């Protein structure tokens, strides 16, 4: 880690900070997330309410601390599963080739064209609203994108001669995919994961808005911004703070990823 560039260090710091907050946040929260503690909505920064109060007069600090856990937990799992599933399927498609590839690619194309709102609604309708479901839906709506990118990478790598060498050695497809192809596409996929993470974080609020996932009084960071949006005009911390929270979280995650993959690419280059 010492070799991390500055940007990477900054990223690492914030990521660590957020993970810490996600774990211990609720314990540190001065108030209950649902408790209306102040008569006035959109209270400004104050000694009693460091991050002001929200549209109902609830303590913003406590709400953000509560939201961090959901946002990070959900987005991380969802984005990860999207990228992992996408990559795995892509590897299968690329290595197997032929009709397997065809069928999978067509299905993914079809998948991309299904409106995520509809997906979400069906999910809620079919299985009721729950956190695992939220993750599943988010993951499902981002898997095809990951798949497409991963597949194009994999197909390129597959044609390279060291893969031929592995085949001539009699290696199984599984090994070729895992050991020969994957390592040479992991960096771009990491970068892609970074962006997906951002998108999922933002998607969550939309989903909760539809009534899928995090249930009141809890909320994810995006929903905090959304539910307090009318405080924007008086520049209420209730809107600004969660927005900043999202920014620091997502940006730092990407900085960290860039730094890490940057390091390994440099290692490969020279």
């Amino acid at each position, binding site marked *: 880690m010492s070799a991390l560039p500055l940007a990477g260090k900054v990223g690492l710091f914030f990521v660590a900070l957020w993970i810490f907050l996600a774990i211990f946040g609720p314990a540190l929260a001065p108030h209950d997330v649902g408790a209306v503690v102040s008569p006035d909505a959109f209270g400004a920064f104050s000694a009693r309410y460091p991050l002001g109060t929200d549209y109902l007069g609830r303590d913003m600090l406590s709400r953000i601390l509560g939201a961090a856990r959901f946002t990070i937990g959900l987005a991380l799992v969802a984005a990860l599963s999207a990228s992992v599933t996408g990559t795995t399927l892509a590897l299968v498609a690329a290595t197997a080739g032929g009709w397997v590839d065809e069928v999978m690619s067509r299905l993914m194309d079809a998948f991309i064209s299904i409106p995520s709102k509809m997906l979400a609604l069906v999910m809620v309708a079919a299985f009721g609203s729950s956190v695992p479901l939220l993750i599943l839906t988010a993951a499902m709506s981002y898997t095809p994108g990951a798949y497409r990118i991963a597949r194009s990478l994999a197909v390129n790598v597959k044609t390279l*001669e060291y893969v031929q060498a592995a085949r001539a050695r*009699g290696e199984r497809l599984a090994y070729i995919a895992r050991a020969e192809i994957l390592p*040479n596409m992991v960096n771009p996929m990491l970068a892609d994961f970074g962006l997906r993470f951002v998108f999922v974080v933002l998607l969550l609020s939309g989903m909760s808005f539809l009534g899928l996932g995090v249930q009141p009084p809890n909320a994810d960071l995006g929903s905090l911004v959304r539910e307090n949006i009318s405080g924007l005009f008086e520049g209420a911390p209730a809107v600004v703070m969660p927005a900043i929270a999202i920014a620091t979280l997502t940006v730092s995650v990407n900085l960290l990823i860039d730094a890490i993959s940057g390091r390994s690419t440099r290692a490969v280059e020279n």
Partner: protein
Amino acid sequence: MDALVHVEGLRVVVRKESGGEVPIVNDVSFSIPKGEVLALIGESGSGKTTIALALLGYARRGCRIAAGSIRIGDTRVLELGPDALYGLRGRKVSYIAQSAAAAFNPMKTVMDQVVEGAIIHRTMPRAAAEAKAVGLFTALALPDPKTIGARYPHQVSGGQLQRLMAAMALITEPELVVLDEPTTALDVTTQIEVLRAFKKVVRERGATAVYVSHDLAVVAQMADRILVLSDGEMREIGPTGDILVRPSHPYTRSLLAAAAPQPRVDDTAAQTTPLLEIRGLVAGYGRVDASGMPEKRILDGIDLTIARGRTVGVIGESGCGKTTLARVVAGLVPAARGTVRFDGEALPTNLKERTREQFRRIQIVFQNADTVLNPAHTIERILARPLAFYHGMRGEAARKRIVELLDLVKMPAALAARRPAELSGGQKQRVNLARALAAKPDLILCDEVTSALDTVVGAAVLDLLAELRRELGVSYMFISHDISTVRAVCDEVVVLYSGCKVDAGSRKALAAPPFHPYADLLISSVPELRTGWLDGLPPRMAVEAPAPGEGKPAAGLCTFLGRCPVRISGICDRVAPPRRELGGGKEILCHHTGDELEALQSAQAAKATSRQRGQSVG
């Protein structure tokens, strides 16, 4: 003194992962008078390319020019700022890279890239530059010089690319030209033409040049003076003649000693039970039609047998199908027709049906070492895999074995931790070989194993192969375009020309006529280790290899027809050539009888030798 190039105490280092720096070129000093050609020779990995690049004030990623001074004319290269460097590169000094194929941008026409230097440095308007380029093309004996510029790199043969690169380097009339192994990747017949062309332009333009190579014979033709390197250190420097005749440094002597390869075959070990039997093989690439014939047919009716413990050489120019043949045996390319039998039983031509044992027993050493090693893996991991895969060898045992393997191919164990990109071309090639050896195979398909290596290491590798053969009875298919090596290691030799077996016979048969006309061309193209050999050669008629994609003659006819110096019009271009048995297991595919050919070829040989005697006096 009036030397054009002055290099003092040059030192280049590479940064380690761990942080420290190690020198790859150390305290190198030399100077080149105007109009002279200095050759850098030395084993692979000795720092030749590094020095060459340093002359342009350039160091590869991860490398750094740590100390020393380089003066070209009155420019102090290492003291130039970025902008000044842009001005220097391609203007004062220009570079001809080791592999032309990789050095051309696949997306742009050849002409664009040839004149680019002139455009960048505004030495002349584009139109003028193009005119000049066409002039250079002619001077470099390129086919249809007027139009070749409009082609894309992939539409031009390797040898032609190499010459186009020369044109690219000369377009700005630089004071110094740096040629980095410009012919290593070429086969002899093409190499000759390229060397001729280079020599001609260098002479006419009185250019000053640095010629990097590990092939003494080639250097002997090109250089006025030679600088011998090993491990990034200067060993000696002197006029070509002296170095070749009375080398002072032991390393140089070893180089020379290895230059003319000794025979490494003792027929005692030879058995005759066939290990690999190929019959009537037809194979190729692209879509297969209803009858199972590939769109792009490469190999046509190949018969070939490799007996246990024997080595069969496959020679032929670039693109004739050598690698394809190996790939068929390895199962990477399906056979459209014919059979491949291994150790008595038929070998499934598609990978899925082969047993792991079959995989283990047949190993292929791929040609392009730099693309065949996974850039993401360390050397250790690359070598560990076959050990684990075939022999279930892991942990300490595996690590010990890996060190052994590296040692076998004359590489320091320290390199095990590096990734392929951190190795020189030759080093990669040896890792590539070591990986095959790890499997303890019965048959090794060696595709140009030594062509990227210098004579010393090359010789060492050949010894290794011979040793394995002696002790373990390993058999080889030895693919190469370097006949001298093939002569040295093979019991039998097969000559391919555009996918057809045109000549086959024992090693001895390859020593004296009669040959198939193409084989003859090949053999007489091998550079000899003495100055002036190149100039002594009789000027040949159209020996130009057709660029990829250019039409073969009608099916059935002799494929060599277009280039054959002894073709009989009326027969060769009408009737398919017969396959003639000439006794002693020798066979050729030609209309000429053995005697006719013998007559023709011995006469010609006589002429050549006499002329050269007359020349190389004094």
